[in-house]
């Protein structure tokens, strides 16, 4: 009995140590990035992983002054928020219709949306560029929102549709009998129930938009409209990269994502399991 407990204890410790190592492996790059951003290029190339001897914030100043990180940051925020709002609004309404109503062509529409997830973005770069050129939509403040919403919708609809299916229809019937119009049922009854699935969609689409690179590179020309991922490439010259400065810029770029995740992490996990078990 005693021996078994001892065995259990060691196993537990072993598992914990392994988990600790795993989480360390995940978090170390972030820590490394943060303290490296305080080093000078010379310190950095001398020893890549050592702590900064004389921490200095020059890299941040430079990243904002010449790197214009604040502009890219605001652009990314602007485009991210608007895209996510559109994706959630359109996605939710479409998903509701697709899961609750049976009409001719319903399956076709659903499948069309799902196909959107199968198309590799890179195969669309040139066609989308040509199309935007014809429409005169290149290099505008709102340009990027269109493809982002279009590419965000399939997943949003897929997740929300399967989630709404799990909500008992009786709730809506009860609302209907009580005289609630469909718009009110949708906004006041279904939407609150969908909150976990919605925060999953929110977080996934926001991250996708925040990190999106190919479209932002191709469709945008002006420095004042560029987003973070494209702006970050400005830190690598043809032959050399100023790593500490790049790190400083990266800290500026990653911080909000981490904060968004921390704020919503509980909801995301909820949303994922909610969909997984019942779907």
């Amino acid at each position, binding site marked *: 009995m005693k021996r078994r407990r001892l065995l259990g204890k060691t196993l537990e410790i072993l598992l914990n140590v392994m988990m600790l190592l795993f989480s360390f492996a995940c978090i170390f790059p972030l820590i490394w990035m943060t303290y490296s951003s305080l080093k000078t290029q*010379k310190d950095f190339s001398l*020893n890549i992983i050592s702590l900064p001897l004389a921490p200095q914030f020059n890299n941040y100043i430079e990243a904002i002054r010449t790197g214009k990180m604040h502009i890219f940051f605001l652009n990314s925020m602007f485009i991210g928020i608007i895209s996510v709002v559109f994706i959630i609004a359109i996605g939710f309404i479409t998903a509701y219709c697709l899961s609750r109503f049976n009409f001719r062509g319903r399956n076709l529409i659903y499948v069309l949306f799902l196909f959107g997830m199968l198309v590799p973005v890179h195969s669309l770069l040139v066609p989308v560029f040509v199309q935007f050129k014809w429409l005169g939509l290149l290099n505008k403040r709102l340009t990027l929102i269109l493809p982002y919403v279009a590419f965000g919708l399939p997943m949003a609809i897929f997740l929300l549709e399967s989630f709404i299916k799990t909500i008992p229809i009786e709730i809506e019937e009860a609302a209907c009998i009580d005289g609630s119009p469909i*718009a009110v049922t949708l906004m006041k009854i279904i939407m609150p129930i969908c909150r976990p699935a919605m925060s999953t969609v929110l977080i996934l689409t926001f991250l996708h938009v925040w990190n999106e690179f190919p479209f932002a590179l191709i469709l945008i020309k002006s420095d004042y409209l560029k987003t973070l991922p494209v702006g970050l490439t400005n830190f690598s010259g043809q032959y050399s990269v100023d790593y500490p400065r790049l790190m400083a810029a990266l800290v500026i770029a990653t911080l909000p994502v981490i904060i968004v995740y921390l704020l919503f992490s509980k909801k995301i996990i909820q949303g994922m399991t909610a969909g997984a078990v019942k779907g």
Partner: protein
Amino acid sequence: MKSNVLKLWCLALVVAMTFLTACGTKNDDGSKTPHGEQEGGNGQETSIELNFMHFNVKESSEGGTLAFYDAMEMFKDNNPNIEIEEEILGHDAYETKIKTLAAANELPDLFVIKGSMVSAFVESGLINPVNDILEQAPAWKDGFMDGVFNDFKMGDNIYALPYSNKSTHIIYYNEDIFEECGITSFPASWEGFKDAVGKIRDKGYTPIALGNKGKWVVGSCILSTLGDRFTGTDWFMSIKDRKGAKFTEPEFVDALAAVQELAVMGAFNADMNSIDNMQHKTLYYGGKAAMFFEGAWAISSISEEAPQEIADVTKLAILPAVEGGKGDAKAVSAGAGWGYNMNAELQGEKKQAAVEVFKALTDEKQAKISMEYNAMPASNPGEYDESKLTPLFKQYADIMAEAKSVPVYDVQLEPAVIEVMNSGLQELLIQATTPEELAKKIQKEYE
């Protein structure tokens, strides 16, 4: 119920439509249209607008970039009627974008292209040869150094104007470590070089720091020059023009064997395939390695990054002569890499303005500025202020003054062949393949 659904959909549609039209019209008036056809009639006081896409990022402190901005500034001051709208991207992002724009037939007016892009661009009719432009200004044309057009030539046509000439092979060595190991001067023969490697290794140093994770380092910085020592440049030219030479010829196999021999005798650090060229410099900066092979671009890295005591004892050299090899002992693999060209659709005064921009970026005056920023230009700089050169760059300039430029393999060969060669070199270094097998594999891909 059904009519409610309909209403909902209509509402969604209307919202979507207003949004679409809003972004279609609202921003139109503010932005400039680069094509000024509508104002073509009244020629007085209209400024010529050109858009120029390049990768000289403002954040960079590379000499070439600084020289570029000096020239641009000067040009803009002297030509107030020419308005240049620049689009600047990081080097790798630039490459993706220019290829996409080329595929969509929407190239900017002025841009930079790489040797390997030339044939694709020419086939789609996106660029014209620059021969006629050069012929019109003989003084400008004669200013270019020998061989700098090689990367951009198809037959007799030249398809880009180079602005830099970079050797991809330079040996950076630590004189102190050499002396400590009893080597008084850089070896003058291949046998002597191998001897030296042995001596350094026996003292416990890594003779050559090598970070070949990116695969190109060995091919670009070692084999392009070492190969030339064995095979001579004629062999390569015959390969490139498909005039009968083969990769399986004994000279090229010998060159591959020489690379493997270095690996077998422990000339490189053991983790050469898993660190990159940034990290191999770290090994060198730490005083643990006696040499590293890299292109001329590393010169500025040394003066900016290396600790003073290492920078002070760093000297430059090139591979010594190989006994029995067909190549020139002074040959150094070098190339312009990138060069300027303009959209084939440019006409009239716009084309003339574009030529003026290119002149400003590649002429003798610019070469002098470039030299003083410690970046090797593609044109002869004439007289320049030597005191502005760092000691290392001075050494480099001296080496290059005597050297003969030979082709860089991965700039001039097709990407597929290069891929096989560079991956094969990684295997060769860890003895996973033999020189003969590798040569056969490259030859197969080449055919």
